[in-house]
């Protein structure tokens, strides 16, 4: 194994659903249900999935806002959960977060100087040259005017606010930045600026990113490796190129084909309007309180009913192979790269590139 800066092992996060007078826990929202990941130093791991896939919960566990139900989080090889309180606080400095919404992630009553300088205040750090100078340097690093420390967040545009958020996350010189949809709230023309900034910072500071996003185009651009989540589990993972070009999981393929391509020619060749590639999934993702048995995707899978093994349990129900409904598929290598893994019983059926348009 090479240089892993952040490792996640069998991470589980369940939220109890409480009911009744005694607030007894009657069920659990299985937000993250056994996820293992490795983020290597200086690289970017893209984490994609739809709402409810657990990608944001995972991000929050990693920065310590939520405590995991079980599993391990290792920062530089050290298990966070076994550390003392002080040790955790120290370690927490190594993993910082960039938030999605630049309008709500900055306290409107604090000046930019206070916001960016708050990490120093919290950890009682006095950087060489004083906090003021350090804040100015951070602002400069993210491309803002260091003289603007006394301004308030509302005086900045969305893109600038996101830069302030990044400066705050960088104050403690973290090793890992967890970016939770950092550009999805920004205008298209501003998104690129922030993405380029993140890439520059990575190069300059040797940062590692866990980049959580639903925009597959942005993830392809910035990420070295990609993990696809569905209902709290990783269904496919691997280097960016094989995952996008030769996706092995039917969900990944559906996700890729659902991304609107900014090219009207694609529509023309595909025939039906709004249906390029032809993989439109039925229905919505199921609730993580009661995920389907077996493969969590089998209730929406477009591949399963087309397989010769497919059979219908009850008249009228979707025909799927029995194994999909009963056994949870493991992440096993498929395709050329050993690091490219997918959790599908029938991934072999997908060996032929079906998505490349």
């Amino acid at each position: 194994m090479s240089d892993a800066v952040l490792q996640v092992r069998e991470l589980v996060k369940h939220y109890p659903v409480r009911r009744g007078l005694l607030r007894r826990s009657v069920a659990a929202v299985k937000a993250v249900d056994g996820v293992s990941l490795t983020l290597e130093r200086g690289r970017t791991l893209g984490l994609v999935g739809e709402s409810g896939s657990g990608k944001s919960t995972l991000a929050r566990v990693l920065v310590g806002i939520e405590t995991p139900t079980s599993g391990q989080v290792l920062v530089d090889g050290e298990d966070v959960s076994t550390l003392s309180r002080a040790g955790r606080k120290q370690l927490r400095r190594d993993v910082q977060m960039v938030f999605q919404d630049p309008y709500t992630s900055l306290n409107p009553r604090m000046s930019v100087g206070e916001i960016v300088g708050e990490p120093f205040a919290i950890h009682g750090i006095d950087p060489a040259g004083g906090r003021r100078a350090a804040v100015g340097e951070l602002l400069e690093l993210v491309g803002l005017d260091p003289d603007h420390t006394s301004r308030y967040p509302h005086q900045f545009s969305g893109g600038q606010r996101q830069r302030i958020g990044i400066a705050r996350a960088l104050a403690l010189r973290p090793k890992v930045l967890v970016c939770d949809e950092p550009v999805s709230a920004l205008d298209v023309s501003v998104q690129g600026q922030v993405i380029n900034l993140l890439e520059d910072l990575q190069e300059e500071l040797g940062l590692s990113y866990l980049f959580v996003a639903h925009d597959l185009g942005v993830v392809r651009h910035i990420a070295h490796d990609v993990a696809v989540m569905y209902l709290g589990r990783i269904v496919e993972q691997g280097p960016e190129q094989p995952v996008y070009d030769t996706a092995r999981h039917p969900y990944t393929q559906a996700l890729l084909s659902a991304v609107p391509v900014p090219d009207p020619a694609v529509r023309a060749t595909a025939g039906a309007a709004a249906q390029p590639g032809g993989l439109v999934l039925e229905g919505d993702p199921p609730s993580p309180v009661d995920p389907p048995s077996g493969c969590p995707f089998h209730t929406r899978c477009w591949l399963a009913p087309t397989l010769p093994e497919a059979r219908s349990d009850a008249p009228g129900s979707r025909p799927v192979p029995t194994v999909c409904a009963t056994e949870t598929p493991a992440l096993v290598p498929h395709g050329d790269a050993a690091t490219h893994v997918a959790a599908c019983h029938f991934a072999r059926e997908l060996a032929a590139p079906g998505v490349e348009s």
Partner: protein
Amino acid sequence: MSAASRMRSAAEGEGRGTRHSPGAERSEGEPKAQPLLEVTDLVVEFRTSDGVVRAVDGLSYRVEAGRTLAIVGESGSGKSVSSLAVMGLLPPTARVTRGSAQLAGTDLLALRPRQHRAYRGERVAMVFQDALAALNPVHTVGYQLTEALRARRGLSRADARTRAIELLDLVKVPNAKARVKEYPHQFSGGMRQRVMIASALAMDPEVLIADEPTTALDVTVQAQVLHLLAEIQAERRMGLVLITHDLGVVAGVADDVTVMYAGSAVEQAPVGPIYAAPAHPYTRALLRSIPSTAGADRGTRRRLPVIPGRPPSPAARPSGCPFHPRCDVAQDLCRTAVPPLTSPAPARLSACHFAADVLANRPPRAAERRDDRPQAAETPTTPPFDEQVPGGDHE
């Protein structure tokens, strides 16, 4: 000069003979289709503490039966405000100060609020981005679908129920019979947006305005909803106005495109040509800045081409061409003169002084066409204002 007259003079004055309306992508000789909705020279102003602000500045477009017009723009471009004006749903601080919106011979903008209401829903309906906020949590979905029908058409309870089920079937909500009795919170995001579409369709409108209808949805669900919209539109020959910021969505469903920037249309054209060869630097830059899933930049991670700076606030628009501070081909002329919508090619309109050059993808040769300018301006001035300083004051 108003935008509409600009448009006209552009089309005629350039001596190209025929008038090119955006979306006139049909065979020669076919009689010109009567537009369902024609917005001309719309100006909407807001009263704010900083004075009067123009959110929409001379916007014109037309929607024809069975066609989809996409209005694309970033925040502050006025794309939503313009449709709220057509719907008569502007907030009290806003006023339409000029322009018309002709719907089958009636100018919607000249109507009094009471009369306008009669058109709303019946002839023009609107679907909003946030379906959860647009539905009332304390009434059943069935009740909300048919509220207007019962009030305006006097449907009985039983008839209304039947109609509600029909509508839910129409938007492919499974098990419609049972679901009419449920409340909005029992529906998922995608299903709620379907309900919204169903309620907009309740009175069989001729024009449907959809304001970012899929922005809040996941991609797989977005694909379903877009598919549904396209299907229903084709079936009913409805005019559809799709307001969005997502050029991917536009490419998938639109017939015609209007690109808005800082309150006015900067480019109008049928969807194919506009993606193949944009005639405005803004459209071109926007298209370039989208990271693709197809991996055109595979292998080496190239920097994403970006538009420097940020969209201007409606309260502080740059002089001349509003895009000039961010434009990669801006010339001296752009700082002072507002470019009219001109037609650099058949069926194309672009509000750029150098539209023809941009269309041909060659560097602008200043002045020539704007006859009265001296030869000196021929050498392009370098660089465009905004050096690529990330952020700073320009953004």
